[in-house]
């Protein structure tokens, strides 16, 4: 009886969120420094109109909105996976330094290349794209944080370690910046500014493929995520090979974070905030409910952030990371205040 009731409740929330996401997607395309009427947008999409406005829609607004949606999904899924794996309500790719790891990967690629071009590392880096370098960097930090969290039980201590790992990677990047040539430095600094609008159509395809693959892997691992809610011993006692499955989930999260970070720069607090907003709305911990709702929530929130960052009437747009931080930090603080004892 209750099961069908909650299925219905979550389905209603999911449908409402999907509708909201669609609405935000349309609004994100239409609104901007130059608002575009819906009818014009429709004609541009169907190819009935080719004008200055339809060019803006097809080659700028629509790809940017698609990037926002995909990045929102990627970071939210990654955040939820990390919260469950670390059994830490504040785990998130940004807070635990995984985004910094992705940044270090890109820094080594962009600035390290000139220094080590003759070495094997240099050759390896040169052959890698931003996405691969960022994913590798993210995965390295993820594995370090996993090793730490297995030894340090206190969740706040793990968070502090994450901040320290993030600082350490920033320091390494600082050293790289100091020694790198001006051109390389400039392209790295441009990358750190990030943004959702600088993604090429080839990159958008990679982002789409990774977001789809990562979400699918996450959906296939809902049972493992549920089993891990009570911790490693319990997961093992109900028949789970924890080490193997945890590695798969960690690498999925690193891949999602790495790719999103590679193309859009570090984006904070989406990963920590959206799973909690999803929990507040559906009041469920079961990942079969929580994961799909978190994905939709991530898409909606990121579209909203993109709209806020490029408010109508302003020529320039705010850096996306400032908007996500301003929205996400209060939620993170709320979680700390409320969940002092509840993991």
């Amino acid at each position: 009886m209750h099961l069908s009731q909650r299925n219905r409740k979550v389905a209603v929330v999911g449908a409402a969120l999907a509708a909201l996401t669609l609405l935000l997607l349309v609004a994100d395309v239409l609104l901007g420094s130059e608002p575009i009427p819906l009818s014009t947008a429709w004609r541009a999409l169907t190819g009935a109109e080719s004008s200055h406005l339809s060019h803006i829609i097809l080659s700028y607004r629509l790809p940017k909105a698609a990037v926002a949606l995909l990045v929102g999904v990627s970071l939210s899924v990654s955040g939820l996976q990390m919260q469950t794996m670390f059994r830490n309500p504040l785990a998130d790719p940004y807070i635990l330094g995984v985004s910094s790891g992705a940044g270090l990967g890109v820094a080594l690629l962009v600035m390290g290349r000139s220094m080590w071009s003759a070495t094997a590392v240099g050759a390896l880096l040169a052959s890698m794209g931003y996405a691969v370098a960022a994913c590798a960097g993210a995965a390295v930090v993820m594995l370090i944080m996993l090793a730490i969290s297995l030894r340090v039980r206190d969740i706040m201590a793990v968070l502090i370690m994450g901040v320290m790992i993030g600082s350490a990677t920033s320091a390494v990047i600082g050293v790289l910046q100091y020694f790198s040539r001006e051109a390389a430095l400039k392209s790295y600094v441009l990358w750190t500014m990030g943004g959702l609008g600088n993604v090429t159509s080839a990159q958008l395809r990679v982002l789409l493929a990774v977001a789809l693959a990562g979400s699918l892997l996450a959906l296939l691992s809902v049972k493992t995520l549920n089993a891990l809610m009570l911790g490693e011993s319990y997961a093992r006692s109900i028949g789970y090979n924890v080490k193997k499955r945890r590695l798969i989930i960690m690498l999925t999260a690193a891949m999602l974070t790495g790719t999103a970070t590679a193309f859009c720069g570090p984006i904070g607090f989406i990963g920590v905030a959206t799973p909690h907003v999803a929990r507040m709305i559906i009041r469920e911990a079961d990942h079969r409910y929580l994961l799909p709702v978190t994905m939709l929530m991530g898409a909606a929130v990121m579209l909203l952030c993109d709209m806020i960052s490029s408010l109508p009437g302003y020529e320039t747009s705010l850096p996306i990371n400032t908007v996500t931080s301003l929205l996400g930090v209060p939620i993170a603080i709320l979680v700390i205040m409320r969940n002092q004892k509840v993991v």
Partner: protein
Amino acid sequence: MAHQAQPAIALTDLRIGYAASGAPREIFPAFSAAANRAELVALLGRNGLGKSTLLRTVTGLQPPLGGAVHLLGKSIRRYPLRTLATLVSYVSTDNVKVGNLKVFDLVSLGRYPYTGWFGTLSQKDREVVVQALAMVGMEAYAWRDASRLSDGERQRVMIARALAQDAPVMVLDEPTAFLDLPNRYEVVLLLKRLAQEQRRAVLFSTHDMSIALKLADRVWVMCDGEFYQGSPQALMCANVFDKVLKNTRLTVDHSTGDVRLKE
């Protein structure tokens, strides 16, 4: 059933400890012990002697340094992880709190060895979960948030989760810790009932010596590098509990099993 004649748990020359970085650290000398189905077995011993390590070794959560653990007549090494999960269930000392997790969902985790890829419960799985909740007297709490239960309520729910696993052997690490006195008795009485009515072997560690002596069918004692096992009465006659309490200001009353201050 074929393995009913076998002890549910048989430990042979078991050496427990940690194989940390090459040099194994044995924390208790080798010993042997056994427990049968339908028996409530209390594991007693002072802190730091390795009671938790022993329980984790019995459940297969960590490998023994030597010797063997047999469950229902077969070495646990020869059971695949998932089969093992249908033979032995475990309740740890962890005070697990997951926000928004429904009691029903928490207990359902015990059905995971039986469910498919997404963990979808069959009609039978749901019935087992409801029965497990009813068995511990928590059926009215099925749709409550498990993180908001009292300590006693949560311990019952964790026991229900282990029950839902439907394993003939149940292992509990200090299930009476954090509980007030009436709840300690209630939990051990519940374990006794589960052992008798469902013919499970229930092994639990505890510091409540007098509760264990009154209710357990068999007692395992770890003390000064020696392992003792037997009925509470037999171990009482052998003065085992006096050894456990030596150098303390406590003594155990041999006729009632009560622990009291020495005069």
